[in-house]
């Protein structure tokens, strides 16, 4: 018995052709790396009429520098992101996070665009990209090219179109990514914390901290960011930081386990950036 229900497969060579197929089909599904999408098809009763693979569209591949930002094509595999010198130099914390996603074969297959477009906010990349102030570019169903915030895209399940690129703006020299899993490293995190900042006259600037509690949408810790902005990295107070973090997360019901992990992570961030600076 076949594993997947029948559908019609399309492999367009261009975005224009892909958009036409997307508009024409009553029940379409876009296919990137397939690691989320094909698994979902195995487990749900619903089935698409048309599956449109994006793997032949050259415009969606590759990593390049554009106006100072690192522009990553949506069909770039996670392994390609990990090994890219441009990402390693321009956004090392993204390379690190991608290297920790799932397993080696999944990283060879899964794409950064597919990871985002699946809108699974609890996996590694959304929180990291939010901490890096990443922006997305997509082609709307009507054909117009749009750009927007990652968080808005993740929350909007109605937007129809094709995600084309991820832009990561220039980053400061300090970054840290901590993730915790329930059993093994290859698991989805139960908690993750991302820190990114630059240094100016030996003080922190452009401080960005984002937490993925996996229980709610990833959240930027604005009070903590404001607290650390302009401070010297070697003189950060852990108690103050914990208090700010708790205020930031006051609307999220966090269990003691996750809170204690966050406390420990904040201590580690303070220690790590103190040494690095």
């Amino acid at each position, binding site marked *: 018995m*076949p*594993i*997947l*229900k*029948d*559908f*019609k*497969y399309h*492999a367009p060579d261009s975005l224009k052709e892909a958009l036409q197929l997307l508009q024409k089909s009553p029940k379409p599904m876009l*296919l990137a790396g*397939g*690691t989320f999408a*094909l*698994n979902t098809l*195995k487990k749900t009763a619903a089935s698409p009429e048309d*599956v449109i*693979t994006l*793997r032949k569209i050259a415009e969606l591949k590759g990593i390049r520098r554009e106006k100072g930002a690192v522009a990553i094509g949506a069909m770039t595999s996670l*392994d390609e992101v990990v090994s890219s010198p441009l990402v390693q130099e321009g956004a090392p914390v993204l390379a690190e996070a991608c290297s920790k996603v*799932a*397993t*080696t*074969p*999944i990283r*060879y*297959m899964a794409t950064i665009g597919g990871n985002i477009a699946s809108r699974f906010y609890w996996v590694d990349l959304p929180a990291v990209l939010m901490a890096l102030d990443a922006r997305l570019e997509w082609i709307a169903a009507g054909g117009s090219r749009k750009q927007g915030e990652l968080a808005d895209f993740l929350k909007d399940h109605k937007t129809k179109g094709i995600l084309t690129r991820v832009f990561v703006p220039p980053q400061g020299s300090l970054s840290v990514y901590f993730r915790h899993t329930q059993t093994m*490293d*290859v698991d989805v995190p139960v908690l993750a914390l991302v820190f990114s900042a630059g240094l100016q006259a030996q003080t922190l600037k452009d401080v960005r901290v984002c937490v993925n509690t996996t229980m709610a949408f990833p959240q930027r810790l604005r009070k903590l960011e404001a607290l650390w902005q302009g401070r010297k990295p070697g003189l950060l107070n852990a108690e103050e930081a914990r208090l700010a973090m708790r205020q930031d997360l006051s609307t999220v019901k966090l269990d003691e386990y996750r809170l204690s992990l966050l406390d420990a992570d904040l201590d580690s961030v303070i220690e790590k950036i103190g040494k690095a600076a």
Partner: protein
Amino acid sequence: MKTISLNVNGKVYDLQVRDSELLIETLRERLGFKGTKYSCLEGECGACTVLVDGKNMLSCLMLTLDAQDRKITTIEGLAPSQGELHPIQQAFIDEGAVQCGFCTPGMILAAKSLLDKTPEPGPEEIARALDGNLCRCTGYVRIISAVESAARKLK
């Protein structure tokens, strides 16, 4: 149904496949490469591992039509000639890294992908490279030893 050419183990097969057919189904049911195993079918266990353009990927998560224009290698295509084993296969036997053998094709192909890229990996690198392959009887110590041993032989 679509007509395609599929390059498996260096031979090109002209096939008619369903649009929704997974690569594992084509390899096993149409071409008879039974070393590629059905197991979790969710990308968790690595028993369905094949090499796609030299990289270990999961045939339960790839449509056959997406495998066109790519070079597929199954465990049957690894040995250099009939009656001769690939050094990684031999190392798995020599080191006692095969017990029930169900995970072995996937493990060996993942090891091949690693050694092609990193000829002298340490134990941690090997464990990390094989993180997509589960073994439930042999245990990982002998498997890692076998990959280390194969690396020495392939030098």
